[in-house]
């Protein structure tokens, strides 16, 4: 289903863009790209143009088809999927079949791919120098190769001796730099970066993105940046393409797409992004779920979730149209394009707002008291958690903010009894039984504290139905007669889900079940270890709203572990910032996140994407 024949006046491709530095012919041109898997369409008609020296960000939630689009563009489609459409690199047609001959000279040489995870994209048994050397084109001599590897390492800001080191000897950021050096070895015209910094800490993320931007300028490379992070797309991309259910729903410059979105989905998605500078009483969400691309009929994929939808939207698909006639850069696939100058994003109910907005001020009733907690793992040079004190009041939410390796997760595990601290105490003054510390084998009392983990996909036993999982939790809590469906209702899921298996649930739904399970023993304290970090923004917002409601209704105290400043801002009454096992700063969320006192907190805030 090629859409290449729609209204030519509405095309973004007309090379009349004022940016004169950009070449007339787009470097990469995609028309009517469609990818079909065993179940049906995964990508259902995408047109894209990327010009030399330009960064195009492809933004979308999981299930939007952005990864499959990238695979098609880099000639790496897996077996079992077929792609149709046309692909042109510098005016030359390229076959979509990844086994086709032209790819052998194109892939890696002209089109290069940078992957998300620097921990698995490098071979652990070869030196970094060797791996960069493989990517060099031609057959350079040994000396020549060493020289070029050194030059590449210098270009990505690594010392020459990195060539002799193995990936495991390097940090995540350094590994990603090595991966970038390897990717650049053949001097590609187009770099496709698939979530290149998602696995990295905020500060490292910033450095790696700066590096990519500098290399792009120096080499006049085109970059296609795949990301789920709107803030990152806004700060790094010249143009943004928003994908939804296998379709491109809106394209334009960052400011056009994110500040004046013309497609209702983009508007709603942008609104879901939690702000860094203030706490919203209730975070906007998008009700419903992203449909599978093949499940969408002739109409607009977003129609079912759109309150602006007309009857027509369900039966007729809109091509990409320009909302403002004088600007052919900004296009959106919406039938109501003309009339939706400023799309109203439904405001969250104000009634709940005022109540939720007021941050809790410290009462006199601590629900959790951590004093002088120390945890050191064998064969490490410093304790993972080093003399941490923490106090959590009844009904309060305290955020522990830190990067990976800061010890925040170890702290959480000590609190729930999954790790035994070497020194210090964990006490729950509100529960009848006092305890903590190394006393007996069972250091946890399920009634005192429960935990929700990060990954929704491994949170539930895949072999058990939701009902079985919840019933087991209720039985362990000594309440075997209660209906697991009540727990589901508490977390905003339909009662019928008791019979479902986890695989039939979305990530957000699974995380809600995990919360329901944690609530079974009626804990006073709920520990959330990066509980929303693996979720899409719109889903994330829903789970955060749920946690806020549970806090209010159940007078629950929440200890929230996160690396994400914006999420911390939305959750926290008070914030503890952890760095290398120690709490370097703590105080009310407003104070810590707007006027940080410690240099480390300032550095964290400075590297948040929205700060650029």
């Amino acid at each position: 289903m090629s859409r290449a024949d729609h209204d030519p006046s509405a095309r973004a491709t007309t090379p009349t863009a004022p940016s004169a530095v950009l070449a007339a012919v787009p470097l990469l041109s995609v028309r009517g790209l469609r990818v079909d898997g065993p179940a049906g369409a995964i990508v259902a008609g995408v047109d894209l143009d990327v010009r030399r020296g330009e960064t195009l960000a492809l933004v979308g939630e999981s299930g939007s088809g952005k990864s499959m689009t990238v695979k098609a563009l880099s000639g790496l489609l897996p077996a079992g999927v077929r792609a149709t459409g046309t692909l042109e690199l510098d005016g030359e047609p390229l076959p979509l079949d990844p086994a086709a001959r032209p790819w052998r000279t194109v892939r890696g040489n002209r089109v290069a791919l940078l992957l998300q995870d620097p921990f698995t994209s490098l071979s652990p048994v070869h030196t970094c120098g060797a791996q960069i050397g493989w990517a060099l084109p031609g057959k350079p001599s040994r000396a020549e190769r060493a020289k070029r590897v050194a030059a590449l390492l210098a270009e990505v800001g690594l010392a020459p001796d990195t060539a002799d080191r193995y990936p495991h000897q390097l940090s995540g950021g350094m590994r990603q730099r090595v991966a970038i050096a390897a990717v650049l070895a053949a001097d590609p015209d187009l770099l496709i970066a698939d979530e290149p910094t998602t696995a990295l800490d905020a500060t490292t993320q910033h450095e790696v993105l700066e590096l990519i931007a500098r290399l792009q300028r120096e080499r006049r490379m085109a970059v296609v940046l795949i990301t789920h992070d709107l803030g990152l797309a806004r700060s790094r991309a010249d143009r943004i393409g928003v994908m939804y259910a296998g379709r491109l729903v809106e394209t334009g410059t960052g400011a056009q797409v994110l500040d004046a979105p013309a497609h209702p989905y983009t508007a709603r998605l942008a609104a879901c992004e939690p702000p860094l500078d203030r706490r919203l009483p209730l975070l906007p969400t998008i009700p419903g779920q992203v449909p599978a691309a093949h499940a969408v009929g002739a109409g607009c994929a977003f129609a079912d979730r759109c309150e602006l939808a007309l009857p027509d939207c369900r039966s007729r698909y809109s091509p990409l149209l320009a909302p403002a006639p004088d600007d052919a850069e900004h296009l959106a696939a919406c039938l109501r394009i003309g009339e939706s100058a400023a799309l109203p994003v439904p405001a969250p109910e104000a009634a709940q707002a005022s109540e939720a907005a007021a941050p809790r001020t410290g009462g006199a009733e601590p629900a959790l008291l951590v004093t002088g907690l120390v945890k050191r793992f064998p064969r490490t040079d410093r304790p993972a958690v080093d003399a941490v004190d923490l106090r959590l009041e009844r009904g309060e939410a305290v955020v522990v903010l830190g990067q990976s390796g800061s010890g925040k997760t170890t702290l959480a595990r000590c609190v729930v009894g999954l790790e035994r601290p070497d020194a210090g105490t964990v006490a729950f003054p509100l529960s009848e039984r006092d305890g903590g510390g190394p006393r007996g084998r069972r250091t946890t009392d399920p009634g005192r504290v429960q935990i929700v983990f990060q990954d929704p996909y491994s949170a539930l036993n895949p072999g058990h139905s939701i009902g079985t999982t919840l019933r087991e939790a209720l039985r362990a809590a000594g309440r075997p007669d209660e209906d697991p469906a009540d727990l589901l209702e508490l977390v905003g899921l339909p009662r019928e889900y008791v019979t479902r298996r986890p695989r039939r649930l979305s990530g957000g739904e699974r995380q809600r079940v995990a919360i329901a399970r944690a609530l079974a023993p009626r804990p006073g304290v709920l520990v959330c270890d990066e509980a929303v970090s693996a979720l899409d923004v719109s889903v994330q917002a829903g789970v955060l709203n749920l946690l806020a409601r549970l806090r209010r209704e159940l007078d629950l105290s929440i200890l929230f572990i996160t690396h994400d400043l914006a999420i911390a801002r939305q959750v926290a009454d008070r914030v503890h910032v952890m760095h290398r096992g120690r709490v370097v700063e703590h105080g009310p969320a407003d104070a810590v996140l707007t006027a940080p006192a410690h240099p480390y907190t300032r550095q964290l805030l400075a590297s948040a994407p929205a700060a650029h």
Partner: protein
Amino acid sequence: MTRRLPRMPRTPLTVLLSAVFLAVAVLCALAGPLLAPHALDQDLYLGTVGAGVEGHLSGTDALGRDVLSLAVLGTRSALLGPVLVACGSMLLGLLLGTLAGFRGGWLDTVVGRYADLLLALPAVLLAMVVVGMLGGGYWVTVLVLVVLFSPTDVRLVRAAVMEQAARPYIESARVLGIRPGRIMVRHVLPNTVPIVVANLLLNTAFAMVALSSLSYLGLGVAPGAADWGRQLADGQRIMVDNPLAAILPGVLIILAATSVNLLGDWLAERLDRKVATR
């Protein structure tokens, strides 16, 4: 969103043939004495004859016993022993591996050393020495092999349990206060079934060869008993008069071990898929 996985490929012919062969073998093992009631009847007057002589389809051995009947009767010791070895060592493996993997600490160290020690020793050689010292006998041999086969099972189960134990749903269960034994039975062990079954069958195949080797060497079964390994050893001496006396049991050993292996691989893959798709 449930993505349908590619359909299961059709059962390969080799697997079907293996299954048929093993089905016949199991039947022979169960009903051996009925199928071959005269297998142990000696006919020293007749002595060794070739295939087809006097109604002996594959001839007779040195004692004038019908080679085919003897092979049918020998199926029981060929199958029962290896299955017992595999099950016994897997039981040990499940017990020790689970304890070591889930408890960790000193127990893990002790179990780990036990496995290392046994793995460092050459199994069949050691079995020969031990069985020889203990005076032989089929059941002693089986028992010795159970112990000698256990370290791979211990390690396998331990690794599988450790991999499972770190999963968030297991940790959630721990925080909920569900007892370790229950977590083990309800959450951890069901997910190790594919590799347990796979190794069970692999070990059966290895044990077949090991037991036959020991019988061949005169250890294991009592002299004169119906056993493929024994038959092979005895048959070798009369290769000239009746080659089938050695070839038939030899081929049967190979076929049985291969069939179990093929079936094991196929089953493991199927179970793995089932766990992965649910």
